[in-house]
């Protein structure tokens, strides 16, 4: 029985050659202080495709952040495997992570914050500076390189943090509700910025959010998650095309997806 299981799994992998990362029966169990167990993630199986924008959406406690942190290697799974197509990440350069807060180093200028990963990886000074400058221009912070983080608005800080995550061209960019702390207008603008940046860098993105609008607007695929225990309850490929703009939000297709997801999340 076991043999068959392994074979079918292999077959499945071969049938999806576009997978950058394969998540296989991943579980995560936390122990509370009283000794009881909380199943944050019951077996989750999911492939992340090359170059796609995949959103994980669900109410709090559904394990979406846990799944993201497992992908990032910030936590170890209780059971299951994460398989990288080109080998497990061995260096820091493989994963870019954007937190809900910008998490910039307050003593470094915006430019130096964006350059920080390159310094850590030992990239030559001149090249690191050039790449940080390019990346700042890409996120629209060209004139703010010399500013300190505390001198910028929340939205600008978050852009700098996205630039920092992309500057070393990671294989996989993980975003944990990056715009959750921003007001709606800023959030809309940041979504458009993100789509543009994504198109220019052709990064693979896994994006955690609890906003249905955001998930539909940004994603190629949406994984709907539900809590207790955290699991993926539905996985949708959105047929909204690759050309996303404000106009999309007025189309019937967009609203069809919104109401579908809203129903599934209820």
């Amino acid at each position: 029985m076991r043999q068959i299981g392994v074979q079918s799994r292999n077959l499945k992998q071969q049938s999806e050659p576009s997978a950058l990362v394969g998540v296989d029966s991943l579980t995560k169990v936390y122990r509370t202080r009283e000794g009881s167990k909380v199943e944050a993630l019951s077996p989750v199986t999911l492939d992340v495709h090359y170059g796609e924008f995949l959103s994980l959406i669900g109410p709090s406690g559904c394990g979406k952040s846990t799944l993201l942190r497992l992908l990032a290697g910030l936590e170890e799974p209780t059971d299951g495997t994460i398989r990288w197509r080109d080998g497990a990440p061995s260096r820091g350069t493989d994963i870019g992570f954007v937190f809900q807060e910008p998490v910039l180093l307050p003593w470094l200028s915006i430019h130096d914050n964006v350059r920080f990963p390159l310094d850590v990886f030992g990239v030559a000074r001149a090249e690191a500076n050039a790449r940080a400058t390019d990346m700042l221009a890409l996120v629209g912070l060209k004139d703010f390189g010399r500013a300190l983080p505390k001198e910028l608005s929340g939205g600008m800080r978050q852009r700098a943090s996205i630039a920092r995550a992309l500057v070393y061209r990671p294989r996989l960019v993980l975003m944990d509700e990056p715009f959750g702390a921003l007001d709606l207008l800023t959030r809309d603008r940041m979504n458009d910025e993100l789509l543009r940046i994504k198109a220019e860098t052709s990064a693979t993105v896994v994006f955690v959010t609890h906003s249905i609008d955001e998930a539909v607007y940004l994603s190629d695929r949406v994984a709907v998650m539900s809590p207790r225990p955290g699991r993926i309850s539905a996985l949708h490929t959105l047929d909204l095309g690759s050309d996303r703009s404000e106009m999309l939000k007025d189309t019937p297709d967009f609203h069809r997806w919104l109401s579908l997801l809203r129903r599934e999340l209820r």
Partner: protein
Amino acid sequence: MRAVISFAIFVALWWLAVALLGVPEYLVPSPPALAAKFWFLTTQAGLFSHIPVTLMEIVIGFVIGTAAGIAIAVLFVRLPMFEIVLDPVIIFVQTAPKIAIAPLLLLWLGLGASPKIVLVAIVTFFPVLSNMLSALRSIDPNMLALAKILRLNGWRRLWRIELPQSLPLLFTGMKVGVTLAVTAAVIGELMGARAGLGYLLSLGQETADIGLVLVSVLLLSLLGYGLFLAVDQAERRMLRWHESAVARDRLLLE
């Protein structure tokens, strides 16, 4: 400017009080009498050779105490075993009255600068250690997650993230430490010394020389104030990025 005005008012009041109340010169000398005493001590008695003695004791002890405080804090956070073993010892030394430790140090280390340096280092060590510990322990978990993502480990993480992030609290500890340091140096010198401002203080007391005592006290206060300003200035330079810099600017404007 404001400091100059309040100083002038203080001197005027002092002079007036001494003159009106007829306080004898051997209890409280008038400002010109004290100035004359100061001039005499400077030109005839080598007053200025005593200042560097005390200053060096404070500075060397302060640097050693600060460095030790930072190092032990890092050690405790990295290897909790050490904290379990060393913490009671450190707290015991810290709670022992410094005045009681001073004779011990003098017996062990003699009348030179070294017992004072050790005493200064001890009193500086504790506030630096406890502030540094809480700084290292309260580092944003997201920042440590970032370090983990970038595979920034060990000493490199310490140098690039933890130490800069700890600077605001470290400076708080150093400011407390530097004021304690002046007191510790004087205690050491009062107990037994051949030079230094504390030595002059005890000399003045023994010979009932009120002018000498007052001059020593004034110089010690100035020394302490100057050292505090030096640490404060260093903080200002290094923490321009910190939120406290904004609050400070606001304070200066008001």
